[in-house]
């Protein structure tokens, strides 16, 4: 992607101007997307993104710059700007002048697609999206169906002054279906999506018709559903994307980005019991073809499977280069960034609660009144206070251990450390779901996952005037 001697020159220039460590990240991304609205190809676009980011360390202080001008002049000028801003021009580091010998490493193709982009014409995608559209029309009330496919092929190079020269390739494909059901003035939505580090075989893993039907049926259920109850109650959280709760409630709190500054309520807690004994929490960047997998992170470190919490005990944080320097913890291959416009920080990859011993049915037993949260939107957390939330897209009331009427989505919220201790049962049906995670280094693909879990108490942000809510306030608790 870039000439080796140019990369060596940039690193030498940085080191000669006083940087302790220099890193060049080069990225070339091809992106294609097609959106089908009501069966019609509506918006199709293709893009080529190409740029470089240069990161210099002075101790743990960082100078970062990025540009789309990848000519020798462009990169040297950016480097000069970065080093000049430190005011240390002329402070020559002799070690840096001789250049570096790169140890070359490249992706072995662990997540390479079976069916590459070029295999099928664009028309093929259009047909698959139309299948999703047709399948979503489960009732006359389904008025709008929006199906889209996003394909990304990213090639990266990370080279640094320690001699790393790492090339990686990440190919990801994602399918979204959004259905709108209408009854008079009322509109309700249903959403379904899946994404993997694969090519067009995504359609073999997840049939467009299945996603379409899911979105359509969800929109219809929401159209007929009453508002969710309001208040604090036991909640059974569905598997796969249900893992978004722990992504928010605990995942972000274990990133060195926050931990190193003690801006996480879980800083300095290694070895402590931070969760119920039922909880084992893992961040795995190596799972073949998972949405958040890659062979190397965006700092050139090989990814790994990191056990964060084992049977409730905190075992590890997620550590990037800067975090390792600041905390002394071992790097875990967790340095990630949206693209070359962001310096990397410690981020999640595929993060999930490990399967437990219970059956899904057992989780519902003994709940007099509660909520079954089955499908989800995103969430958010404040690592410094642990306050988090996540949105529920599809939910049901639980009465006397039975799943009863559907209710419209509501926000669930709590404080992360409290919630962790209230995880009282974990089922065995672990699955992953694809999400986009936004934080300091931008928006990145990250999978979340879990089996069904039971949390003994969560705030459910429904409506206070719903019938079943009155019934609840009437005194039924588990």
């Amino acid at each position, binding site marked *: 992607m870039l000439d080796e001697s140019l990369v060596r020159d940039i690193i030498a220039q940085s080191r000669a101007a006083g940087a302790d460590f220099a890193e060049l990240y080069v990225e070339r991304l091809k992106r294609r997307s097609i959106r089908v609205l009501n069966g019609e190809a509506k918006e199709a676009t293709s*893009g*080529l993104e190409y740029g470089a980011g240069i990161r210099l360390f002075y101790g743990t202080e960082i*100078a970062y710059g990025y540009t789309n001008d990848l000519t020798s002049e462009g990169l040297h000028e950016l480097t000069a*700007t970065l080093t000049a*801003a430190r005011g240390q021009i002329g402070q020559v580091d002799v070690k840096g002048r001789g250049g570096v010998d790169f140890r070359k490493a490249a992706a072995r193709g662990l997540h390479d697609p079976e069916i590459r982009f070029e295999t099928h014409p664009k028309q093929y995608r259009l047909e698959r999206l139309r299948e999703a559209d047709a399948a979503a029309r489960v009732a006359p009330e389904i008025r709008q169906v929006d199906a889209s496919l996003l394909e990304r092929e990213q090639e990266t190079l990370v080279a640094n002054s320690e001699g790393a020269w790492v090339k990686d390739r990440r190919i990801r494909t994602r399918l979204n279906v959004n259905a709108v059901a209408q009854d008079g003035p009322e509109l309700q939505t249903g959403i379904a999506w899946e994404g993997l580090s694969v090519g067009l075989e995504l359609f073999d893993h997840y049939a467009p018709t299945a996603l379409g039907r899911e979105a359509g049926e969800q929109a219809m259920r929401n159209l007929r559903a009453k508002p969710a109850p309001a208040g604090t109650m036991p909640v059974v959280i569905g598997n796969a994307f249900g893992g978004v709760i722990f992504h928010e409630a605990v995942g972000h709190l274990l990133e060195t980005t926050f931990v190193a500054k003690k*801006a996480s309520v879980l800083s300095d807690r290694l070895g402590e019991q931070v969760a119920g004994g039922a909880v084992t929490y893992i961040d795995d960047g190596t799972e073949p073809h998972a949405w958040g997998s890659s062979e190397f992170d965006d700092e050139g470190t090989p990814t790994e499977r990191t056990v964060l919490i084992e049977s409730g005990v905190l075992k590890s944080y997620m550590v990037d280069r800067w975090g390792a320097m600041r905390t002394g913890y071992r790097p875990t291959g967790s340095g990630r960034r949206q693209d070359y416009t962001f310096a990397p920080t410690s981020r999640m990859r595929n993060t999930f609660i490990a399967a437990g011993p219970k059956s899904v049915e057992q989780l519902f037993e003994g709940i007099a009144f509660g909520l079954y949260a089955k499908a989800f939107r995103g969430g958010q957390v404040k690592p410094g206070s642990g*306050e988090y939330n996540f949105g529920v897209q599809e939910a049901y009331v639980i009465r006397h251990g039975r799943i009863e009427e559907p209710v419209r989505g509501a926000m669930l919220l709590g404080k992360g450390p409290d919630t962790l201790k209230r995880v009282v049962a974990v089922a065995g049906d672990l699955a992953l779901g694809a999400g986009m995670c936004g934080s300091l280094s931008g928006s990145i693909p990250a999978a979340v996952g879990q089996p069904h879990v039971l949390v003994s108490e969560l705030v459910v*942000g429904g409506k206070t005037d719903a019938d079943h809510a009155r019934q609840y306030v009437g005194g039924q608790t588990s």
Partner: protein
Amino acid sequence: MTVDQAKTYVLARAGERGVDAEVVGQQGRELTARAHAGRIEQLTQAVRGGLGVRVIVSGRTGYAYTEELSATALDWMLDEAVENAALQQSSDGFLPAASALGRTDLVGERLKAPLEAKVAAALGFEGTLREDKRVKQVMIAAYTEREGEVAVGSTRGADGAFRRGVAGIGGSVVMQEGDSLKQGWDMKWVTTLQDLDPGRTALDFTERTGRLLGAQPLKTGRYSAYFEPKPFIHLLSFFWLMWSGKMVMEGKSRLAGRIGERIAAEGVTLVDDPTIPGGLGSVPFDFEGTPARPLILVENGVLRSFLHNSETARALKTESTGHALRPYKGILDVAPTNLALRPGEGVSMQEGVLVTEVVGVHAGADPVSGEFSVQGLGLWVEDGKVSHPVENFAVAGDFLTLLNDVTGLGDTIEWEFGMMGGAFGAPLVAVASLSFAGT
């Protein structure tokens, strides 16, 4: 090639192929200085640019973009756009006729200062934050600025450019009192450096976050809600989509077909004004080259208009309102510029929740159904004054019902800078009643 040369090249190639094309070229610059413990922990300086094209081939629309500005990459972009257009069945696509618009510089010398002064602003902000004894950690304290040029050109005559920029100071702070922890996020944006006051912004920030320390649970119930400008703006920055001509065109807005009807309380007037001097979202024209002008969306509770680009306007048999959005990577959409709820005569609070922040709006607000259920933070109000902070609750409702139940509006508005380059403004908003879920 430069972005300008690339734009000329693409329009010429499109002309040779007999393809109608509209090109958006952008080039911008970013500077961010992040302070920590009295030092600059990260300094980011960058330049970025790219080019995006929309083509119409026999009435079919296709898009493509590139950040690599070689002839090969530009040819690839045009080929892809033409191929993408061929996927479309309907052939009613068009490019609006436009004209020469010249170059407008909205930045001038407004963001000009030595790097040292900008770095000092970040350090000053961080230092003032740390002076508050309740501050446990400063997670982020940053000065940041972004400026860039947007150039629009088309084979139908559009030709113009504008340069705009903003600077901001803010970040995230964790505060503690006893066992109570609160984390605030805030960013103060301006278009003129002289309007930045790092010390005062830091004091505002610790005041806003610190007043929530020692919060108590809130009992589940229906209460009057008083939204401070920030949380109301946060909701508005999602629910404005109900006024998007694109959402209306696609059958995803509950406001469709209701122009001229009363949809909100008498006092509610919502205006988008791209011409505000020094406005965070001000522009001379939109991404299709349509000149920008003020637009009333809701007037004294009555729905007057939606936001339109040329495509949504034609579909709904009206004129473009000059709200096309198409950054080089994007596809044609609409977006507000400076969208604000007009102030009222002031609010006297009685009893209820003064909502100071809403969290998780992207996950808890649905602009299609109009419903929201979001995490809230705030202060309990009793006997007309603030009693104590409250936490761990959700506030739920329906945005149109909320607008109908507005009982009062504050007499001044605050502005926030949104993600897509637009700004949102609102006063304090008093709402008769909303559902609060807590303990």
